[in-house]
């Protein structure tokens, strides 16, 4: 069932493509040696190059290039061994050089593809048009002074990858799934930290609407949407706006818009009025970027395992597709799971991670990056289960104690004497006592009231403070009752 929006004139289809700006993970900026860390004092991570001072020249950072290539490889895209930097000319308060160094005509990465998963379990391939490297601009603060904007150039010159998709998405859900998957891939690759609230990823959302079977109609670009949820909202809000325009007899103008997150609508961007003649031309300060095929091969050889491959591997290990999906969403989760599962039963490990651990994270308001229980400790707990030191019930008790104390399961078992009793003699003595004390019930049982079996087991376990091995207790109760 394809997604449509019902208008007065019938159903409309959404056509959506995304341009995602992803900040490259690197120590220094794309063309200067200034730092890139988030949250520094204003203008403290600025070189004269970043501030566009007279006579300053750009020199490219090898790691930023490597990160773009890794990303291209992760998107199964064409790596262009010859690419070039162009200048995009426009005036803006936080654009110190009066141009952005970008790759317009010859990007470093060409066409690729991303497979997205949808809620109904289906998958869809979204085409990648290109990926190019460019500089970020600075930041304008508009709320510090009644009549002035303040400029902080810390971001100026930070490397960005602009990743442009084909207009292949047909619903807000697909747009959300695309951005989720792209973010996941970048984070697996370590090429972008994906922190959308710190501005490390922003999306320009291109939206148009059409009737079934039509060619594309005019699109609008909603700029700088900074969360996956807002992207989905913006797609829908902009589509609804355009449907209204078309249905009221008007026509949609190609323009740049902003998403008002408070009101959930898009609005026209006044300041971009004449910014459309960017006068791109090759940056004369920068010769072409020529890559050696062997260098690219070297990067390819050291690429980490990506989400799709990892998910397939987990399924092969015996996990359900759902668990495999959940465990690979964040690379930290997968890393945690791998540590727990290392040398152990993968399914048991998956159950603990997706069950008890996730619940504990929710309850304690922690995260997989800073988990309530270290993966090594959870692994050790699983070992105690496997070698029958702990019963399932005891393990839950120990797990809670691990969260409270931060101690290893071994230490907790030691301190609290929580070791399960597997000594048959001790269990037999306890069963004898329980049966003796409940002679009336034994009689009822023997008369045919078989559901009392559980009662006897429970009484024995209670008497043993939960430490009796459940299987053995069962076995002995059954034997004694004859």
């Amino acid at each position: 069932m394809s997604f449509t929006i019902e208008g007065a004139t019938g159903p409309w289809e959404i056509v959506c493509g995304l341009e995602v700006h992803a900040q490259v993970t690197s120590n220094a900026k794309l063309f200067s040696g200034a730092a890139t860390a988030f949250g520094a004092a204003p203008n403290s991570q600025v070189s004269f190059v970043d501030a566009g001072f007279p006579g300053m020249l750009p020199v490219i950072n090898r790691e930023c290039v490597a990160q773009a290539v890794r990303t291209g490889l992760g998107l199964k895209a064409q790596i262009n061994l010859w690419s070039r930097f162009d200048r995009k000319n426009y005036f803006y308060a936080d654009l110190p050089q009066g141009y952005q160094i970008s790759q317009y005509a010859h990007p470093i990465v060409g066409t690729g593809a991303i497979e997205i998963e949808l809620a109904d379990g289906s998958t869809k391939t979204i085409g990648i048009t290109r990926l190019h490297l460019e500089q970020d601009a600075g930041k304008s603060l508009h709320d510090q002074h009644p009549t002035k904007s303040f400029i902080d150039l810390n971001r100026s010159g930070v490397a960005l990858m602009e990743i442009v998709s084909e207009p292949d998405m047909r619903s807000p859900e697909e747009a959300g799934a695309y951005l989720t998957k792209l973010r996941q891939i970048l984070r697996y690759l370590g090429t972008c930290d994906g922190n959308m609230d710190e501005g490390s990823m922003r999306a320009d959302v291109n939206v148009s609407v059409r009737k079934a079977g039509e060619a594309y109609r005019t699109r609008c670009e909603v700029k700088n949407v900074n969360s996956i949820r807002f992207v989905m909202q913006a797609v829908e809000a902009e589509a609804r706006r355009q449907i209204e325009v078309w249905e009221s007899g008007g026509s949609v103008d190609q323009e740049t818009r902003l998403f008002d997150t408070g009101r959930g609508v898009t609005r026209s961007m006044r300041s971009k009025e004449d910014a459309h003649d960017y006068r791109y031309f090759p940056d004369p300060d920068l010769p072409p970027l020529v890559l050696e095929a062997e260098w690219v091969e070297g990067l390819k050889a050291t690429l980490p395992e990506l989400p799709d491959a990892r998910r397939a591997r987990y399924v092969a290990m015996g996990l359900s597709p759902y668990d495999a999906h959940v465990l690979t969403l964040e690379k930290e989760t997968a890393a945690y799971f791998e540590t727990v599962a290392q040398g152990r039963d993968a399914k048991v490990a998956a159950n603990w991670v997706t069950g008890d651990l996730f619940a504990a994270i929710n309850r304690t308001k922690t995260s997989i990056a800073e988990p309530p229980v270290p993966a090594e400790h959870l692994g050790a707990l699983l070992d105690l289960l496997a070698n029958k030191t702990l019963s399932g019930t005891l393990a839950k008790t120990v797990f809670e104690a691990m969260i409270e104390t931060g101690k290893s399961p071994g230490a907790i078992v030691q301190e609290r004497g929580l070791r399960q009793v597997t000594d048959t003699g001790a269990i037999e003595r306890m069963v004898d006592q329980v049966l003796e004390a409940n002679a009336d019930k034994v009689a009822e049982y023997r008369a045919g009231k078989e559901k009392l079996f559980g009662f006897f087991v429970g009484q024995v376990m209670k008497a043993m403070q939960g430490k009796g091995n459940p299987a053995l207790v069962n076995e002995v109760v059954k034997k004694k009752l004859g």
Partner: protein
Amino acid sequence: MSLDTATVRRIASLARIRLEEPEVPRMQAELNGILGWIEQLQAVDTEGVEPMAGGGAVSLRMREDAVTDGGIPEQVLANAPDREGEYFGVPKVVE
């Protein structure tokens, strides 16, 4: 290709150079003089010629990813015509 006055105004706006109305015709004449002279290039056969962008090296040299610069906010701000604390100040920008 001859420039009309509207184009002269549009180019001045793109270049962010204020052009007072009486200056427009003179600028137009000068630009058209230069462009008319440049027009002779259209006679050159450039079929199949690869454009030459830069003057020098055939490929970009890459530097290592190390923090070697920045940390000089006082120097960066020292020449600012309007310094507002740790920031550069400009008239309020409305988006």
